[in-house]
Each structure stands twice: as structure tokens, then as C-alpha cells.
């Protein structure tokens, strides 16, 4: 049992963290009132006139808003599926290799892209898929006309999803590796004694043991359905792919900080945040109900 006199010291310990929280997390939240105001930089946020739901009404009248919400959901959903399945398949493949040195080497290499910033990955992708880049060189040697991938609205979402999977699949597999090592090795030995083939052991022991983990990750990822990845798209997109590549976050950035439509951009951002909060809460509640998953 903790001594009672400790409590006042505990408060003191919390002060720096709470100050950081108040000024840099909670105070920006107070800023969401911008969404209900006609912001005037001259008089400041507090004195700017209230306009009620005007900004939201205007948002629903814009054609842009349908496009950006659709693009966001399409890209985020494709990433969600890809980032669940590719790491799972990869982890299962690597799990079948028994040579420790080989598996260690593969793991070390595939985790690497996760640590690179999107500026770097974006820059590399722009180079690789550029007009004179290696992908077009290969296509050309096959007799295909070079394609300007990053200016092509049909190719852009695929490039975004593909490069995201490239960057994260190794890292996302870590959790599956952890689950795979916790499978009781006696099950495999017993199955081998009973004459089960390698394929049987994979489909009857390994996959059923790892499916609950995959289901949990799928549930938790539901909350990300509006997060298509701002940093990535911001480094990769350009006006010629707005129709398929512009997402809520990038649109908010341009509307708010480039065109200074503070009220409108805040309204769109707020709508996204609220929907996101609801979805994440639902996914956490589901994960808690069915898998007893808790954050703390």
C-alpha cells in the first residue's frame, strides 16, 4: 500500500505532462469553434462572429466534399485490407522457414522501410515511377509505351496503397510473428507423429491459431477508415490526380492554410474527427467485447 503523503508528490509529478496536455492537446480542441464562426484574423478567434452551421451547410453543397470523402474511404479501405492480408501471408511464409539466420535477415530487411519518413519514401517512389525511371525502363523493353504514373488518376490510388503496403507490411507482421511463436510446439510434434503433412500442419494448426489475432487487428483497424494517410498523399499527389487522390486531410490543408477558408476547412476537419472518434470507439468496444482487448 502506498503511503498517503505520496499523493501530493504525485500531483507535482503530473504537472509537466498536464501542462503539455492542456496547451498542446486541449487548447487546439477549443479551436474547433472556428467551424461555427466566420473567422476574421483581424479580431481573433474569440471575437469573430458566430455563424452557426453555415460552414457545414456550405460543405454539403460543394461537389468537392463528396469526392474527398469517397477517395478517403476507398484508399483507407484498400490499405486496411492490404495491410491485414499481406503481413499475414508474409508471416506464415517466413514461419515455414526453420533456418534462424535466414529468418532474422529477412526480418531485419523488411522492417527497414517502416523507419523511413514519407518524404523519403515518396521521393524514392516518384523517382522509380518517373518517366525515365526503372519501371518505365522495364515496360519499354517489353515494348510498352512509358506511362506517367504519378500524373495518372487511375494509377494513383494503386500507387498510394502499394507503397503503403511496401513500407509497412514487414512491420505489421511483427504482431503475427509474436502470435506464431506463442503456439505450443507440442501440437506440431503430436501432429507429425500422427503423420500430418507440412501442409496439414499449416492449415490445421498454424492458421487456426493465428486467426483470432487477425480478427482483432481487423476490428481495431476499422477506426482508421477515414485515415487515408496525410503524410503520404501530401508528398505524392499533384493537381492532375485530385479526382482520385485528394483526401479529406489534404483538402482541409489546402482550403484552410493555402486558401484561408478557415471556417469551412475547420468544419470539414471537425466532421472527420467526430466520425473517426465514433468509429474508433465502436472498434475498441467490439475488440473489448469479443477479445477482451484493453488499452489500459
Amino acid at each position, binding site marked *: *500500500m502506498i*503511503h498517503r503523503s*505520496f499523493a501530493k*508528490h*504525485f500531483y507535482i509529478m*503530473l504537472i*509537466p*505532462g498536464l501542462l503539455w*496536455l492542456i496547451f*498542446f*492537446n*486541449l*487548447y*487546439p480542441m477549443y*479551436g*474547433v469553434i*472556428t*467551424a461555427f464562426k466566420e*473567422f476574421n484574423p483581424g479580431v481573433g*478567434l474569440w471575437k469573430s462572429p458566430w455563424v452557426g452551421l453555415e460552414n457545414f451547410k456550405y460543405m454539403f453543397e460543394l461537389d468537392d466534399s463528396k469526392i474527398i470523402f469517397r477517395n478517403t474511404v476507398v484508399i483507407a479501405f484498400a490499405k486496411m485490407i492490404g495491410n491485414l492480408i499481406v503481413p499475414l501471408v508474409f508471416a506464415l*511464409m517466413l514461419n*515455414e*522457414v526453420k533456418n534462424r539466420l535466414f529468418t532474422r*535477415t*529477412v526480418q531485419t*530487411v523488411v*522492417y*527497414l522501410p517502416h*523507419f*523511413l*519518413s*514519407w*518524404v*523519403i*519514401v515518396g*521521393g524514392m*517512389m516518384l*523517382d*522509380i515511377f518517373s518517366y*525515365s*525511371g526503372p519501371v518505365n*525502363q522495364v515496360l519499354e523493353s517489353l515494348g510498352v509505351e512509358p506511362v506517367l504514373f504519378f500524373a495518372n488518376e487511375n494509377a494513383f490510388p494503386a500507387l498510394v496503397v502499394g507503397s503503403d503496403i511496401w513500407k509497412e507490411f514487414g512491420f505489421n507482421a511483427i504482431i503475427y510473428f*509474436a502470435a506464431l511463436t506463442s503456439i505450443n510446439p507440442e501440437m506440431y510434434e503430436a501432429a*507429425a507423429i500422427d503423420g500430418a503433412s*507440412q*501442409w496439414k500442419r499449416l492449415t490445421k494448426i498454424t492458421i487456426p491459431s493465428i486467426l483470432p489475432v487477425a480478427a482483432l487487428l481487423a476490428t481495431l483497424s476499422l477506426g482508421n477508415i477515414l485515415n487515408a494517410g*496525410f503524410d503520404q498523399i*501530401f508528398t505524392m499527389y499533384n493537381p492532375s490526380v485530385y479526382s482520385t487522390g485528394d483526401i479529406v*486531410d489534404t483538402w*482541409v490543408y489546402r482550403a484552410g492554410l*493555402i486558401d484561408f477558408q478557415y471556417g469551412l*476547412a*475547420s468544419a470539414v*476537419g471537425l466532421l*472527420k*474527427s467526430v466520425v473517426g*472518434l465514433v468509429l474508433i*470507439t465502436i472498434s475498441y468496444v467490439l475488440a473489448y467485447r469479443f477479445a477482451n482487448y484493453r*488499452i*489500459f
Partner: protein
Amino acid sequence: MIAERSVASRLFNSLNLILLIVIMLLCLLPVWYTLSISLSDKAAAAAGQVFLWPKGLTLGSYMTIMKDTQFFTSFFISVQRVVYGAAIAFFVILLMAYPLSKTSKEFKPRNIIMWALIFVMLFNGGLVPWFLTMKSLGMINNIWGLVLGGGLPVFNVILVMNYLRNMPKEMEESAMIDGAGPWRILFSVILPLSVPVLATILVFTIVYHWNEFFQALVLMNDAEKYPLQSYIKQVAVVIDPTKMDEEQVKRMSELSNQTLNAAKIFISMLPLLVIYPFLQKYFVKGITLGSVKG
């Protein structure tokens, strides 16, 4: 050991190995390609003659970077940001996680603060309100805007708190019987015992601050105050005409060329590649820690 003799199994295993090697190479290829471009002759790179090996091997791009004072200024700003950010996050998180690792019986406001943290982790006001409030806090053109602007790293606080909660209570109790106060316990008992989790959050923080590029693009009015990643984004990756006047756009496009940009991208990757073994170890630990909750 389970012996495998069937033909199907052998075929499967060899195919599997080959595929894994291909996957591994695919992860390295973009980095390798960037390196070969950066070491190539400008004209060869522009003509698309570089593939897996530099053409007209030259260190010219790297020599040019050596003369680019902005590159070094930005590099230094990044280092500064990482050092401040990591030091502050380390102490704030440690100080916060300890009281929060107590039960609500031992420390009453614990649960209220936890819910506040969860709320902050799941909800944010969005970009524009963030920008406007940062402005009113005087964080424009200010390195502290980059260090603190991301807000309290709630996820890391929870990670450390969960770790402390799973620590045996006896250590703390015996220290208390010996007359140690809360501060003494925190720094002489808790801190040495939680080195693994603290190293993990330190690594998380270092990578975050090194890689984050967007905040500076918004908060810094002039490019001289950009950290390295923002500088690379603005100069090497794309020229964003909306953020510059015509004069600057011209200057940028004269300066910008493929081999030089590749060299910049590669150099900005180097620090991470150097500390990568350390990064990998603690990141993997952190992910596994994070997955064992409650």
C-alpha cells in the same frame, strides 16, 4: 525436429525461400536505386540509363551538398529538435506514468486523468484549429512549436504506465520501508527497472521527430528554419508553387535535379540507417509490449 521428405513439401519450401528472397530484395531495391542515381552522372540519370548500377560514377552530387549551407542548417535543426524532443518526452512521460500506474484507490484522480488521455488520443480538433491555436501561443517560427506541437505523446505514456503496472510491488514497498520518498523511489528503483520500456519510447520519439516534416512547413515562415525532412520535401521531392513566389520557384528548379535530389534523400536516410540495429531491437520490443495489455 520434424523431418520433411515428401516431394510436395520440398517444392513448397524451395518456392517459399525464393519468394522470400524476392520480397527481401524488393524492400532494398528502392534504397539501392536512390543510391545509384545519386552516384551517377546527371545526364545519364536524366536519360534514364541508370538502373541497378551508377552510370558515370561521380561524387559530384555529394560535393554540391557539401557546399549547400541550407542543408547543414536544416540538418542541425533536425538534430536539435530530436534532442529537445527526446529529452522532454523522456522526463515528462516517466513523471506522468508513475503516478498513473497506481490504482485509483492509491491515487484518486488516476482514472479521470486516464480517460482524459484516451479522449485526447482518439480525438483532435483538426489542422486549422491546431494552426490557429499554435499561432496564438507564439509557436510560429519557433523551434518549440516543433518540439511540443505534436502534443503529449499519449500512446507512450500508456505504454510506460502499463509496464510499471506489471512490475512487482515488493520492490517499491521495501524501498518505502527503508524510508525512501516518492522521488527517490521513482529515480532509484523504478527508473533502473524500466530501462527496456524507456529505451523503446526514446526510440519512438527520436524516429518521430526525425521523420516529421509537415508541422515545420506550416509553422515556419521561412525555409531557413526548416528541419531536414521539411527541407527535402520542399526542395527535392516536389516544388510546391503555392508556397513560394515566382523568383523562388525559378531558383528551386535551377537547383533541383534528379541526382542531387537522390543524394539529399540518401543522406537524410543515413542517420536512421546507422542506428537501425538499435532502432529495430527496441521497436520490436515496443510493439510486443504494446500488444500485451492489461
